[in-house]
């Protein structure tokens, strides 16, 4: 009887250790995308990239996100108008800075909401920002929907213009990432 209880203790111990391990999980590539929204007095436009890389550090035992990082190849954004995308790449100097990235320094989880603070590097400029996200823990997947807004001026980006009228300074991003648990 004592042997059995000893084995049970061992099994529980191993399972506890297994559960308490944090995991670094890369995103599922074809379920991850990033879109930016830009507003011009004449019209609004959006451009999406599927070429997003992201890694999340989670603690599966209590389903918490501990850290997150993401990067995107800025040359892969597609608005359906390559002339416009090319213009966007010119203003963000995609030849010198082909990648934008975010690395969290702290992540706070409140219910379904996530607040990831960290460093956003875009156009070769790094700024501290806080990204608000919605986390969905579905059966074997973690899905994160994040949104944030930046100021083009703050990242030393000249606002692109159409018919001599520049776009608004605010550039809104939305990011959807999925991770297989």
């Amino acid at each position, binding site marked *: 009887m004592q042997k059995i209880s000893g084995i049970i203790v061992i099994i529980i111990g191993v399972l506890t250790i297994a559960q308490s391990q944090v995991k670094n999980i*890369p995103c599922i590539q074809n379920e991850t995308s990033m879109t930016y929204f830009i507003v011009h007095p004449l019209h609004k436009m959006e451009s999406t990239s599927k070429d997003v890389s992201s*890694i999340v550090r989670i603690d599966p035992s209590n389903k918490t996100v501990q*850290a997150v990082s993401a990067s995107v190849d800025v040359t892969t954004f597609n608005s359906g108008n*390559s002339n416009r995308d090319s213009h966007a790449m010119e203003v963000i100097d*995609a030849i010198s800075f082909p*990648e934008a990235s975010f690395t969290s320094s702290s992540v706070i989880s409140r219910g379904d909401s996530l607040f990831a603070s960290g460093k956003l590097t875009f156009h070769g400029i790094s700024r501290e920002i806080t990204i608000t996200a919605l986390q969905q823990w579905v059966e074997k997947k973690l899905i994160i929907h994040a949104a944030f807004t930046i100021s083009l001026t703050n990242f030393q980006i000249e606002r692109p213009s159409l018919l001599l009228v520049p776009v608004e300074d605010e550039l809104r991003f939305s990011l959807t990432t999925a991770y297989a648990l």
Partner: protein
Amino acid sequence: MKLCDRKSIVLLFLCFIMGKELLLAQNSERQTDSTAAPPVQSVVFQQDSASRVSQTRLLPKNISFGEQLMWGENGMMRSIGIVPALSPQERKFELSLRRTMLTTHQIGGFISLGLMASTVYFGQQVLNENHDPARRRSLLRTHKTLIAATIVSYTATGLLSVLSPPPLIRRDENSTTTLHKTLAWVHVAGMILTPIIGQAIKHSGTNYDKVAQFHQIAGYVTTATFATSLIVITF
């Protein structure tokens, strides 16, 4: 402490170690599968330093024949020595030049449209003036001056676009830019035909009204197409 309890503790300790090793091995395997993610403790924070280096193409895949001829890797502009060999730094200069040329192209488009509309207006006034020959001659002079100004402005505007360095990317797609360029074929044809028909009015003799009407329609159609090509770019 009983022997069995001690055994259990030792076994528990061994399982703890084995379990940890097993998990580390699993993590390592997962990371190998997932395109070489960095080690567990530093993955998130090493991501930006170890980020992918994107091989940005300097010239678009779908570079047009004209662009290839002028701005390609061995294009005319480089072989003559007007611009240096293709390099990221040089390409940045060319994209800046392209932006300047296309911004001027936009301004030129508005100026040309203004001149074209004025030409059409004075052309219509010439056709309407049937009573005062002196006024008609004066209107015709203004019409001809505006024709010359329109042709110069229109040609310069078109060349700014045609001769500009290629963009960074170009995809096969149907966009407002595609429509803008398609309409350009129509107004270019109009800009060639309208003055030719205008010249033909002089020698039209008894067909004066008919030829003048052709010229009038060609002028209106060209102006409308040109205006449309300007408007579509805003959508």
